[in-house]
């Protein structure tokens, strides 16, 4: 009898602890578009603060620039970044200062164009070249984040 009940109890404990951990870590918030979600773990505090001082503060939140706008692409990028971010924050082994990855820089560039394409289609070369070639934020660096806020790494 003991042999039968034990696995069930254990699985139950796992599910319970797992569910509580998910709630405690505000897991559901990651499904939302709320910018405060991005400072759940405080690493992005400087980015959040500087976004509030930027010209785009009134018209765009984090996900408008940093995630694709189509449903599948958006949730794939959420999952991909979510995995990298939680792994990095748990293990505390990431490069500092934090910098955007190439794949995310492409998403960002696409989102600049999603709003501003009508204005800039003449200046943006529609060919596949190096991402740096015509990145809007290369010059418009303060559009999304105001003055760059300082936050260095651990000892």
């Amino acid at each position: 009898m003991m042999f039968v009940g034990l696995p069930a109890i254990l699985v139950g404990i796992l599910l319970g602890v797992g569910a509580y951990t998910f709630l405690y870590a505000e897991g559901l918030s990651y499904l939302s578009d709320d910018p405060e979600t991005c400072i759940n773990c405080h690493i992005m505090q400087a980015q959040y603060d500087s976004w509030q001082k930027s010209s785009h503060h009134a018209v765009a939140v984090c996900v408008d620039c940093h995630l694709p706008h189509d449903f599948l692409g958006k949730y794939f990028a959420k999952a991909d970044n979510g995995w990298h971010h939680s792994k990095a924050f748990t293990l505390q082994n990431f490069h500092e200062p934090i910098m955007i990855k190439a794949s995310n820089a492409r998403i960002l560039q696409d989102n600049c164009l999603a709003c501003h394409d009508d204005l800039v289609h003449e200046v943006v070369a529609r060919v596949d070249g190096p991402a740096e070639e015509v990145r809007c934020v290369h010059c418009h660096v303060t559009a999304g984040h105001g003055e760059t806020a300082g936050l260095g790494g651990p000892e």
Partner: protein
Amino acid sequence: MKRYLRGWSTTGVLALVAIVAVATAGVTALLVNIFERKAEATQTYVSLAEITEDTTDPAEWGINFPRQYDSYLRTAEATRTRFGGHGGSEALPEQKIERDPWLQRMFRGYAFSIDYRDRRGHAYMLVDQEQTERQTKPQTGSCLHCHASIMPLYRELGDGDAMAGFAESYKYSYKDLNAKLHDMGHGHAVSCVDCHDPDTMALRVTRPGFIYGIQALAEGGAEVPHLPTVQKWRESSRAEPYDPNVDASRTEMRSFVCAQCHVEYYCANKMPLTFPWGDGLTADNVEKFWDETTFDDGQRFFDYKHAETGAEVLKAQHPEFELWSQGIHARSGVACADCHMPYQREGASKVSDHWVRSPLLNVNRACQTCHRISEDEILARVDTIQQRNFDLLQRGGAAIVALLDAVQKAREEGATDEQIKPALELQRKAQWRLDFIAAENSMGFHAPQEAARVLGEAADYARQGQIAAMSWREGGATQAPKP
């Protein structure tokens, strides 16, 4: 249940138990990790020791602020960059005057020609000052303004009024005032209380020399685009003097706390410690201020008489704040602390690094938060700037030596004091400019263009002085051009 599990072997059940146990342990560990990170983010500090205005021992503050104290303690470590510091195994840093003999020649008649070494970290500021061989000459109590946690002593000297105590301090000899400091139990290097309010931890300035200096700067007319609250005060009613502890912005305070000491000043026994900022912060502004200053006996201001030539020359201290003020970083709103005490992350909390040191030893936090280029590239760019400054500085040194040689030769040929005077005035101007950049601790980096401009003038004045000495029979061929 029994039916449901039929077919499971004992081994299978045990394997399942093991897998679930490992998974549960993993999830629990994650839960604890998340809890710890959340706790780190909310934690400010726990007050265990009582801190007052008289708590000068940093170890007492360290009980409440262990993170900041840990990094402060590391200022005792030897660090060096290509052009500064002390990283060897020797007990004391190398002598600058042996490495650059023109410095020794330039300082003849001044205690710096006896002992002038590379710097060590904040932790050593008091010990190094007590032990320098310059102490074989009488030194003034003014020196402690910046080398000790001195405010309680100023309050004692002024019966509670620190500003009054400060006004008395220059009359004491260094040895007497230093003994008093130790008797009172405040024999500590610059400490937490010098820059932080013990009740609120807010940044504040305490040094009377700085407070008078910045007031004079505000009341003067010099342009200070990098200090917006000074400009704002000038446009106000000016009912109260400019008070950095009230008027300055947080960004400005992150430079002002350093500018309490990393500046040019007069520090000897003829008048109180003086920050020469009434006419502005450039080398020329400060020179004008000194040229228009007289001692109580009516004599023109000078720091020492040059032992070879008899010229009344000026000694530049370490005008880091002044040179930074002329540079692009100041103009862009970057404070001293942004590069020399950048924020660092400990878990989920943000602490400013109190291991004050060269940004070149901390490039990722000091530079890369704004400059998104590789560390190698940043170091290479800085090296280019500093190498160019170093080369110009050495040319200036050669020019000064040539001037001194020419004066000596003219004397041997029988030139009178009157005939040699134009050369000596040019020596004063040239030495001032050369020393302004040589004594400044960034090898030109704080404002590269300005440093090059000042060094260009230094070499020009030195060569003009050389010509004046060589042509002493005609009363000096050239005169200093009017600015």
